[in-house]
């Protein structure tokens, strides 16, 4: 039997050096006893604190601790996966006494089974992973449950006493240094102590509970908060114990309230259920009258675009308002000579409350620019004012509005047309063409020329910009784009927003 004695319980470098040598020598796992306990007959391990570390006793090397080297992915003649090194560095912090043997057994098996670590179903790997998880949890709980106490006000100095579930004090400490960089603090535990002075972390030997700092005045406030945030109607002791195991309670100032909070919870909840509501104060009844809000839109014809914008928000002519953020009314000068009518707002328009600001809006803007039509002099709106869609995970998928929805919303479009009185209306896409002309008007057959509207105006039907976005074939896209720009230019000319033949 070979006995390997490590410098400390968490002496990873020492373990690594010994393990590397033993595997190279072909010493099988059963033939090794690992320990970190001090041998009465050998000198105490080096200096203060952890770190360093050596192999002694039966390893027969009285040489000083090997200096920390790069991790042993490339040691004497063999390599191990990085995942194993990470695993081993965590597992060694576990309090289980067989952890060192388990790690060596894994290292030993890795020689024949190089992909062992990637098999979470292997019993040794599963156990090591469990230990790794327990260590990670202990670190996390230490980050959560350390309670600093103010021990000096000038300079502000804090100290905490803590008992970690595993030997994780050193591993947990950098978190506190990052969080409380500009504070001076010490964390005392039975395994080790760490101190931060604003510059460096210093590690020293563990201490006794008697060294714990005394109570902090803020703890009374903290307990007040803890008691008040608890909802007695939802008592769930099991969940609390699972996440805040009892072993931590004695160092948590709030935990002393727990028994009483639990004991009175049922009674408090029952009293709330049983209590009759008390009549509201008089001032409230009066205020209620003052706060009565305006009802839904009353159906009167709006007389300005501002009224349209306000009234369309409470429109209930169809059901699309339910899942939409808001109605998106038209935008542009009150008497624009040119009006663009799209199909319906999309995802971005629905959020912003403005028409044509999303991807299709960008195509539209670019084409307008190419055609020389200034968008700010045109009125831009949609045939349907609410966004029709279907939720799909974190996205909303556009759905074409049906005939009923287009008809219901036509009331708004007609109101906008009546108020703006444009010389030319451009219908973008089939839905808009139908809404503007009043009957199905296929784009391909009718685009490229002015159609006469009953109200003296002219209409042009053309593609919807998102149609251009969807065309997969580059040639077809270029062709459609050119036609689209051509139609916009024609509209601009008819509306006298650009000079005829200027291009």
């Amino acid at each position: 039997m070979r006995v390997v004695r490590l410098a400390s319980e968490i002496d990873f470098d020492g373990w690594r050096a010994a393990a590397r040598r033993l595997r190279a020598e072909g010493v099988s796992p059963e033939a090794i006893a690992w320990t970190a306990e001090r041998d009465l007959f050998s000198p105490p391990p080096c200096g203060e604190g952890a770190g360093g570390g050596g192999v002694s006793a039966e390893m027969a090397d009285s040489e000083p601790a090997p200096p920390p080297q790069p991790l042993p992915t490339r040691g004497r003649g063999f390599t191990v996966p990085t995942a194993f090194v990470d695993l081993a560095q965590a597992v060694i912090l576990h309090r289980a006494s067989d952890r060192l043997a388990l790690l060596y057994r894994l290292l030993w098996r890795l020689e024949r089974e190089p992909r062992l670590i990637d098999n979470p179903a292997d019993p040794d790997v599963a156990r090591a992973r469990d230990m790794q998880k327990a260590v990670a949890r202990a670190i996390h709980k230490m980050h959560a449950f350390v309670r600093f106490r103010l021990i000096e006000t000038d300079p502000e100095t804090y100290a905490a006493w803590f008992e970690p579930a595993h030997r994780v004090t050193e591993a947990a400490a950098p978190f506190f240094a990052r969080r409380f960089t500009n504070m001076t603090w010490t964390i005392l535990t039975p395994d080790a102590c760490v101190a931060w002075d604003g510059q460096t972390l210093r590690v020293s030997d563990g201490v006794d509970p008697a060294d714990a700092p005394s109570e902090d005045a803020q703890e009374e406030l903290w307990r007040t908060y803890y008691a008040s945030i608890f909802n007695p109607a939802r008592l769930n002791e099991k969940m609390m114990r699972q996440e805040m195991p009892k072993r931590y309670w004695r160092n948590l100032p709030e935990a002393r309230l727990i028994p009483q909070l639990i004991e009175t919870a049922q009674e408090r909840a029952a009293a709330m259920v049983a209590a009759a509501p008390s009549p509201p104060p008089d001032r409230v009844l009066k205020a209620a009258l003052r706060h009565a809000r305006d009802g839904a839109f009353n159906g009167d014809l709006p007389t300005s675009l501002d009224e349209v914008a306000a009234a369309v928000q409470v429109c209930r002519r169809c059901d699309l308002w339910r899942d939409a953020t808001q109605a998106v009314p038209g935008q542009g000068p009150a008497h624009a000579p040119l009006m663009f009518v799209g199909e319906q707002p999309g995802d971005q328009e629905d959020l912003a409350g403005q028409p044509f600001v999303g991807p299709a809006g960008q195509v539209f803007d670019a084409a307008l620019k190419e055609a020389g039509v200034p968008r700010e002099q045109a009125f831009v709106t949609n045939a349907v004012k609410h966004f029709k869609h279907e939720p799909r995970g974190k996205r909303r998928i556009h759905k074409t509005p049906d005939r009923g929805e287009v008809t219901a919303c036509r009331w708004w479009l007609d109101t906008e047309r009546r108020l703006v009185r444009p010389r030319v209306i451009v219908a973008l896409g089939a839905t808009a063409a139908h809404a503007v002309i009043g009957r199905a008007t296929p784009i391909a057959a009718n685009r490229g020329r002015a159609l006469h509207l009953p109200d003296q105006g002219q209409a042009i039907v053309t593609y919807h910009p998102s149609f251009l976005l969807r065309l997969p074939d580059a040639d077809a896209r270029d062709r459609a784009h050119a036609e689209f720009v051509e139609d916009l230019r024609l509209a601009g000319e008819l509306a006298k927003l650009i000079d005829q033949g200027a291009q």
Partner: protein
Amino acid sequence: MAVLDIRRKLAILADAAKYDASCASSGGEKRDSVGGKGVGSTEGMGICHAYAPDGRCISLLKILLTNFCIYDCAYCINRVSSNTPRARFSVKEVVDLTLNFYKRNYIEGLFLSSGVIQSGDYTMEEMVRIAKSLRLDHDFRGYIHLKLIPEASPELAAQAGLYADRVSINIELPRDDSLKSLAPEKDVGDIKRAMGRMRLAIEDKAEPARKAPRKSFARSQSTQLIVGADEAKDGDILARSASLYGAYRLSRVYYSAFSPIPDASHRLPSARPPLLREHRLYQADWLMRFYGFAQPEIIGQGQDLDLSVDPKTAWALRNRARFPVDVNAADRETLLRVPGLGAKAVDRILLARRQARLTIDDLKRVGAVVKRARAFVVAEGWTPGAATDGEHLKARLVEPAQLSLF
């Protein structure tokens, strides 16, 4: 009015805040106080610094600025018609409390909400002042979650986003008609518009082009739905969530079982909170977000979830023709739909089966709940035989009644 000491104020204003289920302190940008003047860090994963006996995580100092409120939402303890004791913090009191608690490692940061006093803008401005003071005067780098007042101006909401890691607006009631009757002054349109603006603001800041010079901005928004205060069915609630996730990219929808409150309104049920129902809703929500289920597959509108089994098991029982699934061959999407296999277990299965064919015991080791999975899977040396179609299968999968879940 008598002057209240800080402890009494804290008791009142924490008590008034506890019906908000949100506690997350995750998802902020990664930062620490190295090179700064103050304290604080956020490292992606949130930390629960304590648990109350209700099993809920205490991560943030969750308080109201004031519980005075001009509104009369029937479900709310702070409604104007309630006779609950009232208090109001000053800006400095909240700032000091946050820092004192933070330095002692009690909390991850501040979650500030408020009753509406004077006007939405006035209230929001006070809340923003607190966040601003913490960030600018004290270089506080911990987590801040601000509740937005929906009717406050977009400029104030944008300022809130500038100092907070997360903002939220509670919809509270799943159905618009119940919102109208139980919260007459709340306007669902205001709420949705504010959420819409916030999503645009968050995404705008998220664009890499605008990252430099880095100006921190809220990373996420969330909301809460109260369960059991109105007639909405589980299917309606989940449909609302699906619509909210899609529209506003919420990081979370919280479900809060309507809990009896002191001095409740006579218009609401006075009963124990439906905790199991709340738990099932969270499970269903998870299925939508991480397991590839669409809301109609889980439960239709107008219907309630089966309380006796989890929603994935309920789905599997309705779709037995899709089972058993071979754990040594099925793809990820299919495995995710097997009861008893969580997302982590599925990933480990995919890893482990590259090396060896998996047995039922292997499943246990990768973290599957074998008791629930066994009737639905084929593994090396294991086939469920007729169990998948057995008429008593459901009875065997029913969990013993637990009132105190979540």
